[in-house]
């Protein structure tokens, strides 16, 4: 560590910024987009932008609260089930003739409650989040089945579904992207610019120490799970409207994609490390690579190899760098130590000599 401190004195801030993990993720996205645009003639088009972003939105949305939760050292595997539950509720309530605004409010409320249940079990009762959310993953998906069964509801108001897939002018950017960006920026501000956000890193690094400096760890965690439930429910609503279909299995399996994106974005699974920039870049990278390979007619089911490999490389590569730079650091230290030692010996010898005199 001494090395990094010593170096930061010599290196300009912009160099460090340009070599940071977030920056590397952004380069990767830029390279992927450029490469795809040059290689695939159909890639650089407004149609691509539209579909790419529409596909990204669910992962991007849930990745926000997931980033915060993983930074505190916890995890939430139930997000996709909450999205499924909210989708199922939406279908059933709409079919029962409730006004759409009420349906949406109720679905969001259910998401918040589902998140609160997670939070209370984890932070309130002190149970492990990995185990609890495997349980609620089954429970919420089960409730989705109870609510809607085998049905699929498709008769949502045409205005709303076409709004969901509508684009801003002829840019190809989906209109809902504005809302998504607002949410992303809100999470970025909360995480990086508020004391609450700094507290999350503290909790992830050392929960006990965080509570000693006055952070109410349990309350913070419950809050995060509530947000996560709300955003997951919102994603469920988006999913339902985008595909004009409310089904119990909507968004199933999404939790692992989200977690893969968050970890690829440089968030440490042990907590205490990560940034929104990195995660957004990771979501973009996965989206771009997946979409370009899809244009090349590589089947979706094979494409998951890319997601998996990226995830493994993203955690193994820094470790390899760490080991290499660690070895170099140790070598340097030992040479330094040898120099110091010889200096000390000459020094002591000369003092001893003086004493003799």
């Amino acid at each position: 560590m001494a090395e990094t401190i010593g170096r930061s004195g010599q290196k300009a801030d912009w160099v460090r910024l340009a070599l940071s993990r977030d920056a590397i993720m952004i380069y990767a996205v830029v390279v992927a987009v450029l490469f795809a645009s040059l290689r695939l003639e159909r890639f650089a088009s407004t149609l691509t932008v539209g579909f790419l972003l529409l596909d990204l939105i669910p992962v991007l949305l849930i990745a926000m609260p997931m980033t915060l939760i993983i930074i505190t050292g916890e995890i939430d595997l139930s997000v996709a089930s909450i999205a499924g539950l909210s989708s199922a509720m939406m279908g059933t309530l709409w079919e029962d003739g409730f006004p759409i605004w009420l349906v949406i409010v109720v679905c969001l409320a259910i998401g918040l409650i589902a998140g609160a249940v997670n939070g209370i079990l984890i932070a309130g009762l002190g149970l492990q989040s990995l185990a609890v959310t495997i349980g609620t993953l089954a429970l919420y998906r089960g409730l989705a089945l109870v609510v809607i069964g085998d049905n699929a509801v498709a008769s949502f108001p045409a205005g709303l579904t076409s709004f969901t897939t509508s684009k801003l002018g002829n840019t190809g950017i989906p209109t809902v992207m504005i809302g998504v960006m607002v949410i992303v920026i809100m999470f970025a501000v909360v995480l990086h610019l508020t004391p609450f956000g700094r507290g999350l890193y503290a909790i992830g690094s050392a929960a006990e120490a965080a509570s000693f400096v006055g952070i109410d760890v349990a309350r913070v965690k419950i809050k995060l799970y509530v947000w996560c439930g709300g955003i997951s429910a919102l994603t469920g609503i988006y999913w339902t409207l985008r595909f004009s279909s409310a089904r119990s299995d909507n968004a199933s399996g999404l939790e692992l994609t989200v977690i893969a994106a968050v970890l690829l974005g440089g968030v440490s699974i042990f907590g205490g490390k990560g940034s929104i920039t990195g995660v957004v870049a990771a979501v973009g990278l996965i989206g771009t690579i997946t979409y370009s390979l899809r244009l090349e007619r590589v089947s979706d089911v094979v494409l998951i190899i890319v997601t998996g490999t990226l995830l493994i490389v993203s955690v193994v590569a820094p470790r390899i760098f760490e080991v290499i730079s660690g070895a170099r650091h140790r070598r340097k230290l030992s040479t330094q130590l040898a120099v110091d030692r010889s200096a000390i010996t000459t020094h002591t010898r000369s003092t001893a000599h003086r004493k003799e005199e």
Partner: protein
Amino acid sequence: MSAQEISSTDIEAVLATGSRPTLMTAVKRLLTAREFPVTAALVALVLFTYANNQLFLSRQGVKDLLLNATIVILLAVGQSIVIISRNVDLSIGSILGLTAFATGTLFVNNPDIPIWAVFVIVSLFGALLGALNGLLVTVARVPALVITLGTLYVFRGFNNLWAGPTQYFADDRPDAFGDLSVDTVFGLPIITLGALLVVVIVAGFMGRTRRGRDLYAIGSDPTAALLFGVPVGRRVFLAFAVNGLLAGLAGVLYASRFNSVGATTGNGIELDVVAAAVVGGVAIFGGSGTVVGAAIGAMLLTTITSSLTTLRVDKFWQQAIVGVLILAAIAADRIVKLRAERRLQTSEAHHG
């Protein structure tokens, strides 16, 4: 070892030493065993269902229950070895898919291949995939959750690439192979007997051998285990390889038991398996629990579906009930731990 990680059985054992083992201590040990709640739940469930519908425990009924549980039992046993060492393997669903498809492919391409050879080849294939996980986890020293989430995708992707739309059906395999999951010995299906044998062997390994105990030590406190001279990396690697081997074996049995194997075989089963281990009393952060508990947990989770069907509970409620069951198991584990801690404190106060 922190107080948290000492199971109540250990404490009972400590308290019981010195005094002669009486019937009371034996009963007490039984009641406080980690496997007790899950076993009691299973027995209660089976009896309750039986009381409502005698057909539940008919010859065929029992056979179905056991057949349904067999594959999950094998996977849960393997998974609990990994979880006990404070790791997790999310890629087993994908390993199951690859190995089940490999079984189908072997039979189609080599119609005359002996069945035992398929068992050996495919299990070793599973062990290889597990070893890859183990290698990544131990060499890169990256959390298993992340690595195996990655290999979950990679293995599944290769399965899709390899299988494409191809599916192999029971007709593609020799009758003798399919009969393994039809024929019974003393009313028990042959593949279930095989799985039980595996449970006994692995339980012996975990409970009685140096390597097995090392895994508990690693799960309780990896740093302490390392200081104590336990080769942590080698042991964790072994746990992953054995888990892969068992998943490979489960893949062969899957191909024997179910009609079709293809690109999506075993998709999503990983969370069920982790759930089975947790319900069976294996602590998710390692160090405690037994493979027998995990096997009973697997039995409980698969039996509940059949019971609910027998009891004519709406099938849509089944998954929700499984979710509640998992949560109850975690909460119960926590309560037992808290009680054990408190008892340990009082006993320490007495001795001190």
